[in-house]
């Protein structure tokens, strides 16, 4: 681990094609800062992204990375981490990637509690396909495919994670750079699955969940008496869909990551150039 890594070391030379003003710029900056400040280097970091505007992040960051198929970034991250626990794994996605097509993986990644970080750029819209409703869109949010609005309540991602026994559940706002980076940093440092839902406004297609809306409505938990290690306190806030919280909603203090509970600590990439020394034992079992 190199000690003098700067957050710009995590920035690639590719020019982002996100719309000017997109929330994803701030989300990414915070991720890079969090990685640098936790002492990680690009050589030892693996970023996984799915499909959508968020999926481009692997291109704009500099690290080992895979830009995968839609909705399946979390299992890829799990595979990387278990094969080589020395690698820092950060998975990024959008609300469509994580809570729609990938919702099944999200729930199971949370309960598996592998030591990795999941950052979701939640803009409550499908931006790359030019503005359709996402699973976090408001019930009356009119789009090209939902002219009357989706007419179904949005998914509450924090509650999903809570129900799946999440050990670190947080929310941030991409434009509040310092708080966002702090929260992601805590997620990286958490022993287990660190989940951060980031309000990352889409300036082109979402005229409801805007920067102004979030600025006006956000309640920062740091300014309340919220105790993230208090399960009941966390529950009442997570199940309160009327408030847009920023901060760490829940953190399990004695979280045991999957690697520890399952004894996965070896670097699997290092293998001999023949069968393992005592492999003949495997044959003997069949006598």
């Amino acid at each position, binding site marked *: 681990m190199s000690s003098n890594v700067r957050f710009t070391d995590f920035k*690639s*030379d*590719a020019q982002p094609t996100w719309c000017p003003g997109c929330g994803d710029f701030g989300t990414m900056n915070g991720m890079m800062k969090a990685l640098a400040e936790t002492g990680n280097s*690009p*050589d*030892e*970091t*693996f970023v*996984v992204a799915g499909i959508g505007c968020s999926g481009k992040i*692997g*291109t704009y960051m*500099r*690290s*080992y*990375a*895979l*830009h*995968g*198929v839609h*909705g*399946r970034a*979390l*299992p*890829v*991250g*799990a*595979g*990387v*981490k*278990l*094969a*080589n626990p*020395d*690698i820092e794994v950060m998975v990024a996605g959008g609300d469509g990637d994580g809570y729609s097509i990938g919702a*099944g*993986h999200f*729930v*199971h990644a949370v309960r598996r509690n592998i030591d990795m970080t999941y950052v979701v750029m939640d803009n409550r819209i499908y931006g790359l396909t030019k503005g359709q409703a996402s699973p976090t869109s408001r019930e009356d949010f009119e789009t090209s495919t939902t002219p009357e609005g989706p007419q179904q309540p949005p998914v509450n991602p924090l509650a999903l994670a809570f129900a799946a026994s999440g050990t670190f559940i947080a929310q941030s706002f991409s434009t509040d750079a310092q708080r966002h980076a702090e929260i992601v940093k805590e997620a990286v440092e958490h022993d287990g699955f660190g989940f951060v839902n980031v309000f990352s406004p889409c300036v082109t297609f979402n005229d409801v969940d805007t920067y102004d809306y979030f600025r006006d409505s956000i309640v920062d938990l740091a300014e309340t008496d919220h105790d993230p290690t208090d399960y009941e306190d966390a529950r009442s806030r997570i199940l309160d869909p009327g408030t847009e919280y920023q901060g760490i909603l829940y953190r399990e203090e004695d979280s045991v990551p999957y690697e520890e509970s*399952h*004894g*996965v600590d*070896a670097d*699997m*990439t290092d*293998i*001999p*150039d*023949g*069968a*393992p020394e005592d*492999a*003949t034992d*495997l*044959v*003997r079992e*069949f*006598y």
Partner: protein
Amino acid sequence: MPADFNWAIGGEAGDGIDSTGKIFAQALSRAGRHVFTSKDFASRIRGGYTAYKVRTSVSQVQSVVDRLDVLIALTQRTIDENLDELHEGSVIIYDGDRTTMADVEIPDEVIGLDVPLKGLAEEAGGAIMRNVVALGAACAVSDFPLENLDSALEKRFGDKGSAIVENNMTAAQKGRDYVLENYDHEYGYDLECTDENYVLLNGDEAIGMGAIAGGCRFYAGYPITPATNVMEYLTGRIERYGGHVVQAEDELSAINMALGAARAGARSMTATSGPGIDLMTETFGLVATSETPLVICNVMRSGPSTGMPTKQEQGDLNAMLYGGHGEVPRFVLAPTTIAECFHKTVEAFNLAEKYQIPVYLTADLSLAVTEQTYPPEEFDMDAVEIERGKVVDEETVGEWQDEEGRFKPHAITEDGISPRAFPGTEGGVHMSTGLEHDELGRRTEETGMRVDQVDKRTRKVETAKEREPFEAREFGDPDAETLVVSWGSNEGAMTEAIEYLDEEGIDVRFLSVPYIFPRPDLTEAIEDAETVIVVECNATGQFADLIEHDALTRVTRVNKYDGVRFNADELAERIGAILADDTEVAA
């Protein structure tokens, strides 16, 4: 060839048929006899019936035949289902005290032995051991020393404590003694023992063992018949070698986890069956275009959709060869025997890494669930060689960077193979993507680079064809006018069918093909033959289509898609009939 002996136990699901059959097979193996087992033969009447069949001989056996010498029948239906296979002097062991067996009908000429299985088991310590009593009775009939059965019982129940083992041994002894004391038929069976030491395993286990031997350290899967045994084998074993098995939430996740582990630099695999292959096809293109080495094992069962989950079929060939949108190369290997399941798994991992390509390793249900004996030398761990291909380290990574020091994971090379840097390698940082990309892995839609990358990926196949001996396995008479071609598990039955055909004066050359893609060029062999017959367990002849395409010819197809594997005698009969028709036409 010394006479073989065919034994079966049948009853209802839940009667402990499989474990009883396995104990008897193990006993025979421990007595130095060769064994071939089968549990996939279909009901002629209706579902719910289950049976386990063992064929044994002092020489190697690798198929089943339509004959039964000793049958342990727990139900009347077991007898009805097997009527065709019983012959004069066959023995049926049953428990006349069981209410459903009180009025059992023993066919003419067949010897019925009424043995109080439950009663004797209770005397030995519990009714649950009634099948073991039956095994003891079978030992008496076949003149098979009980000590071998005791040894198998020790292996099966050893971890449950010595009392359980001893009770079972007593149960077996009671069954044997009962037959010897109450019946004095001349059965005429003599199961000779030898000093050979054999191992007994099925195809799923051979694949699992091959995976560990071949350096696989990460497995992610979702349980599905008949591939679950691969996962069960690895669980508890791969950990001893620093590996891990994850049960994923679905097959979509399983293949993506395996992909992640492979990107990290581990030898990684997943195993599934048809319905899982459908799901994994989503990610398959990403694996291939990101040039990630991955072994995807498909233990085929009868399709489409849920199909017949516990029945034999080789119906997924086209799905593996062509599955997924767009065009991208993949390798498809199809081991032809249980031992080959081991060897081809090791080879699949080497091919995957040398050519940075996904490899489908496909066994069919018959291969997966059948147990067969082999000399242990067949699984020679010292002969396993691991070749990881073009992996760079911190010293060599510089050779593959551009002028700005950026690593080129998709460098255009003469042999089509690019360098590979594992995460953690300083100077090897790169992204890979399902988007078309340039040498650095960055998205591109530039026409020249698109063509270069497609050509590069295709060139890997040409390179592999030059470097690898993708050959067919040859049997029979090389100069015969009749050529039979097959793939997968049909090899065992076909090699035996050659002997039956030989007895009728019919010479056959047989090529058994374990490499589906890239595959050996059979054109010359086909041109040399008068008649070409392609044997496979599917309805449409997917492999025959490939052969016709390769050799620009027409072949005769022998297909089977009733859910049951080919038997040797059945194959000999069908091939004989085709040749007889040809002769008629010629005349």
